[in-house]
């Protein structure tokens, strides 16, 4: 029988050494946080009806508005899902005082159509303070409601997080890229 390179009884791997980053991550799993939120489409409609452009500018980024604009008007489902994503993010950040401005939490559409979270300003500072190194987002809508779940990993460097099963998500990549840009700017 031929031992596979890297297998425990392989001559290529020292006995008992776990050099695979996946195994290391499993041995000491990072702390995680999860946030969820449900948003009613009727609340979004009420905001549009009462405050129009001021509501849109205050709550959503220009990129988000581009994604939610349709030939026949605003997609309430898309706006509500993004609002839910922001509220779920706030729950993940667990601010002890005030919450970050809604515009500092952006739902960024990826080229493949999936969505990721990009934090800036106060939200990014809160994430850094909490030791959050990666974020993943899922949104949905059905009938009169939209919902979002945000999952965060804390305390591991982005590279380690990226090696976790299922960790290679747009959200992680965006956040890791943001961290890299911040390091480069520092």
């Amino acid at each position, binding site marked *: 029988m031929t031992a596979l390179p890297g297998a425990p009884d392989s001559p290529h791997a020292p006995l008992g050494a776990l050099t695979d980053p996946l195994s290391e991550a499993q041995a000491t799993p990072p702390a995680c946080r999860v946030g969820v*939120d449900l948003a009613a489409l009727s*609340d979004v409609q009420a*905001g549009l009806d*009462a405050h129009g452009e*001021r*509501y849109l500018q205050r709550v959503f980024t220009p990129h988000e508005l581009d994604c939610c604009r349709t030939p026949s008007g605003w997609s309430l489902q898309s706006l509500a899902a993004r*609002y839910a994503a922001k509220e779920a993010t706030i729950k993940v950040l667990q601010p002890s*005082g*005030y*919450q970050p401005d809604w515009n500092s939490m952006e739902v960024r559409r990826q080229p493949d159509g999936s969505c990721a979270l990009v934090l800036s300003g106060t939200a990014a500072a809160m994430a850094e303070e909490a030791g959050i190194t990666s974020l993943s987002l899922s949104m949905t809508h059905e009938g009169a409601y939209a919902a979002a779940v945000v999952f965060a990993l804390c305390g591991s460097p982005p590279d380690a997080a990226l090696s976790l099963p299922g960790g290679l998500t747009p959200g992680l990549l965006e956040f890791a890229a943001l961290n890299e840009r911040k390091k480069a700017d520092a």
Partner: protein
Amino acid sequence: MPEPAHPFEARVRSTLAEHARLPVDVETLQVYDDLFQAGMTSHASVNVMLALEEEFDIEFPEEMLQKSTFESIEAICTSIASLSAIGDPV
């Protein structure tokens, strides 16, 4: 009907009646009653905030974006008073 304890109370109640989408009559709420417990959603509180800004010609800064700012009629009145005081000429 007794006089409002706070000079802004009547206008705040009127704003809540129009924008908070509460399942109860605002006039039945006491000034310290929790508006979120009474049924105001977080999104409705955003609409309330925008309406208050328009009604009182103020802007809530990021530092005041927290549930406690909008959790009761009293809390809202106090917040408006603090923002209005900032805007007063000295």
